[in-house]
């Protein structure tokens, strides 16, 4: 071993300013945690969250009927995350990428529930012509880049989307969602390093729903405070209550301002909870029914928004009407998804390559 050069100098520690640089976004959020939404805005968030929940409930039913096959990961309980974050993005400019639990992010982006549901049932009119399925859906038109089935892959891919924004100097930012499970993948840290080194305009969004499949956070992660995991790469972290759509929205604004300003990435941990199993075939042996029930009754993001709307003077009757219309939208999507034809057999051979050789 070569002898290390001995230095009299102390190792360079972070100065207070540098420490502040990694904490200042969290400090800004702590100072003012909630977005001040107008009644109309909150109503809109509520409607979007409700649409995701009713859509996912229906998807669960269709799965039970055998109309949806394979893997199907529901977003129930996590609705405030996608709605709060994506409401702060610039449509037509920014980009979003996520893993396989992707229905909610698409609905939050205003993508037609019909073509999403038809993809789940594997039909020609599905958003991927029935060739992708629940985990592999994309809408380049909406700046939604999937829908990726390999845990963690979306993190470097999202960094690549952010790279493209920076390269083109178009002012766009990328939201890359991943879970507490994906947070332990090596490629996530490779991406953190390069994103920070190159100051890429990306927000790394960890949706901590407390379980990586059946492995609870504390059984799988040495550092359970995920927002701290960017520190080694000098990425500021934010710890956000993912069950409150207005806190999520507020955090999004703080992060987006920082990232769009050319300051490099932000790592945001959204504490949330998945009510349903990891996928449809989850035995649910790793947690108690009481634990789930406790979150449902005390922290549900939709109930929370509903209470607030009533306090703002929205009538229960009009909320019932809204629920009815959301249910109708979902029922139409399900009808469409059931009645659309399967892809033509010729589709087997299309879209393998773009060009002819």
């Amino acid at each position, binding site marked *: 071993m070569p002898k290390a050069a001995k230095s009299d100098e102390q190792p360079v520690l972070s100065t207070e300013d540098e420490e502040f640089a990694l904490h200042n976004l969290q400090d800004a959020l702590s100072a003012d945690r909630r977005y001040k939404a107008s009644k109309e805005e909150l109503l809109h968030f509520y409607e979007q969250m409700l649409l995701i929940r009713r859509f996912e409930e229906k998807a669960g039913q269709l799965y039970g009927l055998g109309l949806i096959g394979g893997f199907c990961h529901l977003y129930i309980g996590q609705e405030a995350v996608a709605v709060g974050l994506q409401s702060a993005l610039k449509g037509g400019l920014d*980009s979003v*990428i996520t893993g396989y639990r992707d229905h909610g992010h698409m609905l939050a982006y205003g993508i037609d529930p019909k073509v999403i549901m038809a993809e789940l049932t594997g039909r020609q009119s*599905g*958003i*991927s*012509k*029935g*060739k*992708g399925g629940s985990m*592999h*859906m*994309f*809408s*380049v038109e909406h700046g939604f*880049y*999937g*829908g*990726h*089935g*390999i845990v963690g*892959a979306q*993190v*470097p*891919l*999202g*960094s*690549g*989307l*952010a*790279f*493209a*924004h920076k*390269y*083109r100097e178009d002012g766009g930012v990328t939201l890359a969602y991943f879970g507490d499970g994906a947070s332990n993948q*090596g*490629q996530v840290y*490779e*991406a953190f*390093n*390069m994103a920070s*080194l190159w100051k890429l305009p990306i927000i790394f969004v960890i949706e901590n729903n407390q379980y990586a499949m059946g492995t609870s956070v504390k059984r799988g992660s040495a550092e359970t405070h995920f927002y701290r995991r960017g520190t080694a790469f000098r990425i500021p972290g934010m710890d956000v209550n993912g069950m409150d759509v207005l806190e999520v929205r507020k955090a999004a604004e703080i992060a987006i301002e920082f990232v769009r300003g050319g300051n490099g990435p932000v790592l945001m941990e959204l504490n949330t909870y998945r009510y349903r199993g990891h996928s449809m075939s989850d035995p649910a042996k790793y947690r108690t029914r009481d634990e789930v029930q406790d979150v449902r009754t005390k922290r549900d993001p939709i109930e929370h928004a509903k209470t607030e709307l009533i306090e703002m003077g929205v009538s229960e009757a009009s909320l019932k009407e809204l629920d009815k219309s959301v249910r109708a939208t979902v029922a139409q999507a399900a009808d469409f998804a059931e009645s659309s034809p399967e892809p033509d057999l010729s589709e087997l051979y*299309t*879209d*393998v*390559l*773009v*060009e002819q*050789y």
Partner: protein
Amino acid sequence: MAIELKMPALSPTMEEGKLAKWLVKEGDEVASGDILAEIETDKATMEFEAVDEGTIGKIVVAEGTDGVKVGTVIAVIAAEGEDASDIDTATSEAPEKKPKAKKSEAAEAESGNAKSDGDAKDGMEQLASEVTPAAPEVPDGTNMKTSTVRDALRDAMAEEMRRDDRVFVMGEEVAEYQGAYKVTQGLLEEFGPRRVIDTPITEYGFAGIGTGAAMGGLRPIVEFMTFNFAMQAIDHIINSAAKTNYMSGGQMRCPVVFRGPNGAASRVGAQHSQNYGPWYASVPGLVVIAPYDASDAKGLLKAAIRCEDPVVFLENELVYGRSFELPELDDHVLPIGKARIVREGSDVSIVTYSIGVGLALEAAETLASEGIEAEVIDLRTLRPLDKAAVLESLKKTNRMVVVEEGYPICSIASEIIAICMEEGFDHLDAPVLRVCDENVPLPYAANLEKAALIDADRVTQAVKKVCYRD
């Protein structure tokens, strides 16, 4: 001796064009470099220059004529001392009838360029309608210069980067170090750090970033220092790049090029000496290219960068420094998915790619001295594979040997053999043999390494065996 001017192919895909305008008339003296005519292709109007000196004897195809097939005689130049008016166009040679598989520059040079093997036919109409020769990949009369494969690859990247701002190159040591194998030499100086990007040693991560950037609309060239290290990144190459277009129902493209040296180098041992051609060639959604010489390296890398699909571009370290003829064209782009006959022969076909081409040509020389004429086919693209070229050659020679610097099991060689069994059985006069590396991890010791790798001698022996001459 009168010189025929033939309709040139002005792009790799051009089959016919419009003779828009003659800029000379019969009786005009022309010198090399003079612009003779304007020719319109589907993409652009190009100027057609004289390569030879002389007097325009006869203009055969009038200006304004549409759909003039490549190779059609459009005018005749009388050489010095020849009377232009004596030239009888009716006796002029017909454009060459070429095999469907495109003929190589090498083969063309051997056959004496303009030598015709077709029947002499009267009248241009007949010629144009009945004979549709494949466009030569490099137009006749193109000036050639000598270039190493390394420089040809660099020039391909530089030209595409000048042409399209979306193209950039990233990888380990591609910028300030000038490339671990000097393939990116000079690019940083010309294009700056925005477009020539050094990455940390983090293959999985930067392959993902490159793939994501392609999804986001850019045209990344991701260099792997060698393809051995791309094993760390193979998930993004296959799961992210290759499958997205299909999974998205054709919505989301991924026009990325993954390139770098592949195959055995020299004395670097088992972990640094593997041919991944068969691995990637088995994956739907990928294009896999493995060129041998400088012209193919340049023309195919340019095509790969422009291609809308994800491309794995496999180079070979041992070939980087070899020099070859390289056409001096402003835009030398070659077709993906087409094999090339690098040497014509009638007794046996040797199908190969990458560094195997050199060994096959060496073996073919030896065999020729013993009276066996081997046809050497360079596959160039491994996916999609040019089955037609393989079967066409088999039909002609009825015997085949596949030469591949790589493992024999589940190889390109085994695929070629399967194709011959399934679709060429009636043309086989002997079993197809493969010459591949030994089925062991590559050893370090010089003698063991030599024993493990293919060489020309093994090719010669295998050919003699299929020719029943051993």
